[in-house]
């Protein structure tokens, strides 16, 4: 792996752009590569770009996906019963997860009910159990079921000793004169076990690097599947592990290419974008919101999967997929098919995903758009900058819209913040970003005057300090792409999601390498995904140091 200089650029932004990276020493570079026979993986003691990580557990979304793939259970019961995940911006960050009594009781209830459901339908039951018992006490069939189901549910192969642990449950089948009573108890047990609930990564120790571990092939398979599918590995991937064919970057990449063809990968990446831009829980009950979600999903599908376009087009694309109702809502030409078709934005000022009602709905406040919240959204989520909270010694009420003695116009009212002592330094970096989208309200509709203030004309002019002036969503997207401000953040957000944690200083070489590869691929998003999973650092973990 090449070493590349740190690419983190603060974009010349002053206050509010805090470097979140801390320093650390250079890793030792002594021992030679060797092949670990037992796990059949190459271990490189000189590997770079591996940040610290910790024990991660299934998100609610992952839980429901796994039940679907493991038990053909489509109830999505986890999202109703498990404690809510913090989504900031992604739902799989181990640092925000809490092991609580509420979690444990929910897992028990969910496991018990999923196990019973799995045994209800004979066809489904037989597919899960995999053998036909000769009677309620059929030990051989039970043993086979425990081993084969367990290796899927617990996402590792089971030893004889492992299998033995479950054998006493068969007595309940005998007592109940029903083999499947015992089988259900096995499922009920496994769905609560750490191998199911958590992404267990132990790995192989790296000589001379006590904090570093090389993941086993099986652990790589699990990490890969949850990143690309949000679910467990399929039979093909598990077979690759069994055959020892997931030990090299090329092998991992080949599997990932295969997996990206699956609809699960599309679903996963649609969700990635929805969480990233903040519209993941836009109410899909109303027809207009549902149409907006479909609009954004259609664009992501087209750019990323169907046409594999330069990903930067996502932020400036000149067509949008809308139905008749949404076209009327936006004031755009009607689509050829009222149920939905691609419509040209022409010179409407719209272009790319920032023009969508989904994105525009996200950062509102006080019953209107909030230039501050939108600016914060763009600075934090789209540019990966750190926007500080107001300093504690400053008297602020962030729950009150600003007021001005001279004018009711929003721009004038927000201008008072810029003039207030101690406020302007930060708000000057945030609010002008949001004002560039002011002509688009929180429903994505175009407007030229303030709500209820027809004399207050909105000019739609905005500025991103260090990037430049813009007016409207299309210019915003184009400006961010042209100045190169966007690309490193895209890489970083994908990396966060892939590794289930925030980035750290120790990830810098990995991020830099990915940024370079992303550019070299002419910004193909699927190539970025493949580069992430075939990167050497993907197969390593650095354990946290405890005080």
């Amino acid at each position, binding site marked *: 792996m090449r070493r590349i200089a740190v690419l983190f650029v603060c974009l010349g932004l002053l206050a509010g752009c805090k470097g979140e990276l801390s320093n650390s020493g250079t890793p030792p570079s002594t021992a030679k590569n060797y092949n670990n026979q037992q796990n059949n993986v190459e271990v490189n003691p000189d590997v770079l770009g591996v940040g610290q990580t910790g024990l991660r557990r299934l998100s609610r979304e992952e839980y429901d996906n796994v039940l679907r793939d493991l038990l053909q259970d489509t109830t999505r019961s986890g999202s109703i019963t498990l404690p809510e995940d913090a989504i900031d911006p992604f739902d799989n960050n181990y640092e925000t997860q809490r092991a609580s009594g509420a979690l444990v009781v929910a897992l028990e209830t969910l496991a018990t009910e999923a196990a019973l459901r799995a045994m209800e339908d004979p066809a489904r039951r037989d597919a899960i159990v995999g053998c036909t018992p000769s009677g309620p006490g059929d030990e051989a069939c039970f043993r086979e079921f425990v081993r084969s189901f367990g290796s899927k549910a617990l996402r590792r192969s089971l030893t004889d000793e492992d299998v033995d*642990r479950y054998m*006493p449950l068969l007595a309940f089948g005998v007592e109940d004169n029903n083999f499947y009573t015992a089988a259900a108890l096995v499922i009920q047990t496994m769905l609560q076990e750490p191998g199911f609930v958590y992404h267990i990564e132990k790995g192989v120790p790296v000589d001379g690097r006590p904090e570093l571990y090389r993941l086993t092939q099986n652990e790589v398979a699990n990490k890969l599947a949850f990143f690309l599918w949000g679910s467990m590995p399929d039979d093909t991937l598990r077979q690759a592990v069994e055959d020892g064919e997931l030990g090299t970057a090329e092998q991992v990449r080949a599997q990932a290419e295969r997996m990206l063809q699956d609809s699960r990968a599309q679903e996963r990446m649609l969700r990635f974008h929805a969480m990233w831009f903040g519209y993941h829980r836009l109410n899909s009950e109303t027809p207009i919101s549902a149409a907006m979600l479909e609009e954004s999903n259609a664009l992501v599908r087209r750019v990323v999967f169907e046409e594999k376009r330069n990903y930067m087009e996502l932020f400036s694309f000149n067509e949008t997929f809308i139905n008749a109702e949404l076209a009327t809502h936006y004031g755009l030409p009607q689509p050829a098919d009222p149920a939905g078709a691609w419509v040209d934005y022409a010179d409407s000022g719209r272009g790319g995903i920032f023009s969508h009602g989904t994105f525009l709905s996200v950062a509102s406040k006080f019953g209107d758009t909030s230039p501050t919240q939108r600016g914060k959204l763009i600075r934090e989520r789209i540019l990966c900058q750190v926007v500080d909270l107001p300093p504690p010694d400053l008297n602020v009420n962030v729950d009150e819209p600003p007021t001005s003695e001279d004018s009711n116009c929003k721009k004038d009212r927000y201008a008072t913040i810029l003039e207030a002592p101690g406020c302007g330094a930060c708000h000057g970096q945030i609010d002008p970003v949001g004002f560039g989208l002011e002509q688009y309200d929180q429903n994505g509709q175009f407007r030229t005057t303030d709500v209820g203030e027809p004399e207050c004309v909105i000019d739609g002019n905005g500025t991103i300090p260090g990037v430049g002036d813009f007016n409207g969503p299309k210019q915003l997207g184009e400006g961010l792409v042209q100045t190169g401000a966007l690309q490193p953040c895209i890489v970083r957000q994908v990396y966060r999601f892939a590794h289930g944690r925030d980035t750290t200083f120790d990830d810098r070489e990995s991020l830099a390498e990915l940024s370079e590869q992303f550019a070299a691929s002419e910004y193909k998003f699927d190539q970025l995904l493949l580069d992430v999973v075939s990167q050497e650092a993907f197969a390593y973990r650095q354990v946290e140091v405890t005080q």
Partner: protein
Amino acid sequence: MSAKKLSRRVFLTGVGGTMIGVPLLETMLDDHGEAFAQDGEPIPKRYVVCFGGHSLGADRDDVHNMFVPQTVGRNYDTPLAIEPIGELGLVDDVSVLSGLEIPSAFGGSEPAGGRHDDFHIASLSPLLSGVRSITGGRPVRGITSDQVVAQTIGGDTTFNSLVYRVQASWYLDQSAPYGRDLISYRGDGDAIEATVSPRQAFMTLFSGFTPPNPVDAQRRDFLLRSRKSVLDLVRGSYQRLLPQLSAADRIRLEAHFEAIQELERQVNAISPMETELCYLPDDPGADPTIGGNNPSAGGDGFDTTTGYSNEDERARLFSDMIHMAMACDLTRSVTLQYTMAQSHMNMYPLIQIPYDLHEIGHSSPRGTEGMSQGIRWHIGHWAYLVNKFKESQEVNGSSMLDNSAILYVNEGGHGYDPGGMADNSTHSTERMAMLIAGRAGGLASGQHIATNGAHPVNGIISAMQAVGVETDTLGEVTGNIPELFG
């Protein structure tokens, strides 16, 4: 206690009279006013803290609230926000404390039991634990009263405490609740996550009931034995994995392991005996669907169909289950959070005002009247819970409410905001108020007590004392409200 106490039910059966309206006889109380059941076991005391994530008025409205009665003392009036107390005839059962205040830093350092000037969520720590907050947006810094009570009077109940939340989701896109969803703490920053699913609560509380039918009872015994075997295997898996993990991951997984041990302890507990007071409640069925996020906080174009998960139904279900869990003595301390601090729950389905709860206080044109409608929804459910306790008769003939203290506290008051430097603000902990229902330990219910700036924790300490915690202190706050015992 020497002589066997006379059971009112036995007494009534003996004279063949009706059970309604018979006063509690002195002979059924011991020297300290403690109630005893027929078998000499004391009637358990119960403690419930209910919380609303709102202040009492609206910004810029000079009406501070429609919560505090005009009249002081007994037979107080019930303004809009607490109307349900009057409607259910609970004025004699509920005391209102007004004029409460959590002191603010006012630009300096935070005083003992006080709060940081930045409002959300700086009032939670002093309100719930009596320990000052030293910054905004951070968790509670000390043990909360429900946990002190649980440790003191929980005894060998199956559930040392229960923590439930009605608001099912945070409902905002761009952030996470970061502590606004947590109001029960074992200690500084050590939060207890709430159960949000009514269905889950039902399964946890009532799966231990022994059915009267012998066939059903046999089946239940089978299921219980298999459940214990499953949990034994699950615990074993965590136990085996723990030593193989890095130190940091071991700490994470130990928390999970300990929660499994606690669950096993609950499953192994003796199942409740069905009595007239304690019985298996109706199965609540599937949980209401969880609604989407609020794209806007309120006003023009507010989507009134999202940001709501039928919290009305959820609140009723939790009230029913809390009542029964306490009637069965499964627990003696409960925390019920109706709404998160700074609640972004859509209030339109409840009160037809197109704003989330937080935004009603800040920018709804309805002002304090609109805010009071929002509070009234909370108090309606609280009064429903209180009334269920009132209508439930203990084995000695007293009502459950006679042996309980049920509190209603909320996030703020109305007045000066030292953060935003504004008067008539919701971001204020001046003019706070709280409600205490019940007569446990001699609490004098049915009064409006206008305090002169007492700390809300003084009220909480009074309720803690009433249920048997011998303390005069919670966190950095000392002293009770003497009138509550007068």
